[in-house]
């Protein structure tokens, strides 16, 4: 029966024989840089659009979030607890810090479940796995940068005058985003194996918020040892340096607050370690992620 329904012989494609390559399975990077970048960009943009332009008030909501937090915290810390007494431009500092820490919290919090929530894609498509956590961070970045614009408008309106050290801002952003990427990769790959990572990170994230000089200043910590401890947290160090560069140049820089010398290398080193750990762990997990889902 089937002998009569034989299919005609195959057509060999025209053109030269394409080069042979080996299929080695999924990896963290893999493929061309162009596809990696295109994919990351398009996923991030899509996510941003779906999140912020899906609702009627759209982007306004994402701006409202830090502003509302700022309002509440300003009332509590400045008016009720009087933490802001004798601190120059405390409201601006508070808003600036909130925008930075909220970016970190939002990006890392979303990255925890990022790989799992794209399960369909991971299991049915070949692409460099690292695209997922990076796209999640990039989405949060869009929001972050827009919020920063709002912060600077507020800053100027409040009467802070621009100065040269504002050029340090890109460095701060790069440092914070890099750190966030490292944490995002660490969390997203760990969560595939251990499902309590999301709860654990929720707690750590909260602790970081209270320990990272968001609403109190380093001057309130009197012992040098304690200051070194507080500032060895890379997030706290970024906020402190931000305060020094952007808000109030008379506030101590990280280096000075830690007692001079090479102490500033401590938060930098810890941050670098976290980022390196994120890359290494993610890279090791990447080939098996599709199977573990």
């Amino acid at each position, binding site marked *: 029966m*089937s*002998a009569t329904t034989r299919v005609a012989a*195959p057509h060999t494609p025209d053109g030269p024989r394409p080069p*042979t390559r080996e299929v080695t399975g999924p990896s963290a990077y893999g493929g061309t840089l162009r*596809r990696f970048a295109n994919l990351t960009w398009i996923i991030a943009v899509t996510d941003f*659009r*779906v999140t912020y332009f899906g609702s009627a008030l759209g982007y306004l909501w994402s701006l409202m979030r830090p502003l509302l937090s700022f309002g509440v915290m300003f009332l509590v810390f400045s008016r009720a607890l009087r933490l802001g007494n004798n601190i120059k431009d405390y409201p601006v500092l508070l808003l600036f810090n909130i925008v930075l820490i909220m970016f970190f919290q939002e990006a890392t919090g979303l990255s925890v479940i990022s790989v799992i929530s794209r399960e369909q894609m991971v299991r049915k498509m070949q692409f460099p796995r690292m695209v997922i956590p990076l796209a999640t961070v990039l989405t949060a970045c869009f929001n972050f940068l827009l919020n920063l614009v709002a912060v600077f408008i507020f800053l100027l309106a409040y009467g802070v005058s621009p100065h040269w050290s504002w050029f340090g801002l890109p460095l701060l952003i790069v440092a914070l985003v890099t750190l966030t990427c490292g944490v995002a990769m660490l969390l997203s790959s760990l969560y595939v194996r251990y499902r309590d990572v999301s709860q*654990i990170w929720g707690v750590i994230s909260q602790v970081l918020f209270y320990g990272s000089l968001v609403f109190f200043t380093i001057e309130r910590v009197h012992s040098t040892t304690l200051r070194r401890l507080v500032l060895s947290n890379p997030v706290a160090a970024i906020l402190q340096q931000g305060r020094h560069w952007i808000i109030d140049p008379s506030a101590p820089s990280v280096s000075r607050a830690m007692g001079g010398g090479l102490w500033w290398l401590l938060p930098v080193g810890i941050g670098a370690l976290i980022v390196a750990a994120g890359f290494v762990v993610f890279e090791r997990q990447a080939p098996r992620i599709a199977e573990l889902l």
Partner: protein
Amino acid sequence: MSGYAAIEVDTLDKTFRLPRQQMHTLKERALHPLRRIDHDELRVLRGISFGVQAGEFFGVVGRNGSGKSTLLKCLAGIYRADAGRIRIAGQLAPFIELGVGFNPDLTARENVIINAVMMGLTPREARYRFDDIIEFAELSDFLDLKLKNYSSGMHVRLAFSVMVQSDTDILLIDEVLAVGDAAFQQKCIDVFYDLRERGKTIVLVTHDMGTVERFCHRALLISDGEIETEGDPGEVGRRYLELNFEHDGGVAAPAHPPSPSDGSMTETEPDSARARVVEVWVENEEEKRVKSFPDSGRIHLHAVVEAIEALEAPRIVLWIDSPEWTRVFGATSEGVIASTLAARERVHLHVSLSNRLAPSHYAVGCSIAAGSGHQDILDWRSNAADFVVYSQREHYGLVEIEHDVEVQP
């Protein structure tokens, strides 16, 4: 024109390690840092080797769990193989299912661009081909409709168009033609022919033997992670159908409900002290005991019956029941068997019939009665043996009676 191998697979092995105790939380891990986790090893692919020529349409079939999807995922680079090599010449489509990465909250317009980028195009190329994609999918009127409001057919049309237009050399396709209306299915079929003409290499994983026989130059049958048959699609198709039914309780065979004739329906209680049905079985034309038959040729029913005491006017009946316990066929020993059976005498009844049964699962029953009116039923087995009839064509009734069809103008 000498071809070259687009895909070469060499002794591919894939084993899944399934942990016996689940260590799902970091807390457990931290509390028992030294506990070793035992794994069950599930070897899904066992030394698979094959090649696909450039321009070939290659079918992969197998039952559920045979490893065919795992094979496809290894080819696509979604799973990492444990051993063996896969070599690919040409650009490979990166996904194995249509519509992966579609976002229901975005419009078709946006999804097409995103999907095309995932296929490896740049956003600029994707926008450039956008019109072709939409035109092919016949969705020009629904461009700005969110995907969640699309019907599943429209969904598939869109996904299929993106795949076709992305212009990769090698396509891996897992069960595509399941959705979509008839017109679009026809279109997919046209596309398949077109892709073949253009010399695309296609690996198609499917359950549908019709598709394989219609399009594929060659096919591969996987069973338990090993290659069972490779070559002519017709041959592979036949083997696949056989395999489907040979397996115990094959997936396609409906289970028999308990027979109504077990027990209460029998007028007389079987008196098995006087005779018994020893064994019932079915054989094919080569006198081999089998469980499955093609829908042609002959079926041989066999029964061995033993008289425990001497019997007058014995009568043995062999029959075939459909899954709904409709008696499809019956045959009796009357007129063939001796008029008496001595105590301890065994007789072997053989019924040979030409197979006119539709594909289904059948039960074979056997009874022995004695006495002038045959009302003393001595033993009764309603489901003593069973078999499956398989077919590659459509049947329109339970039994195909010899017939002629004429159409008058």
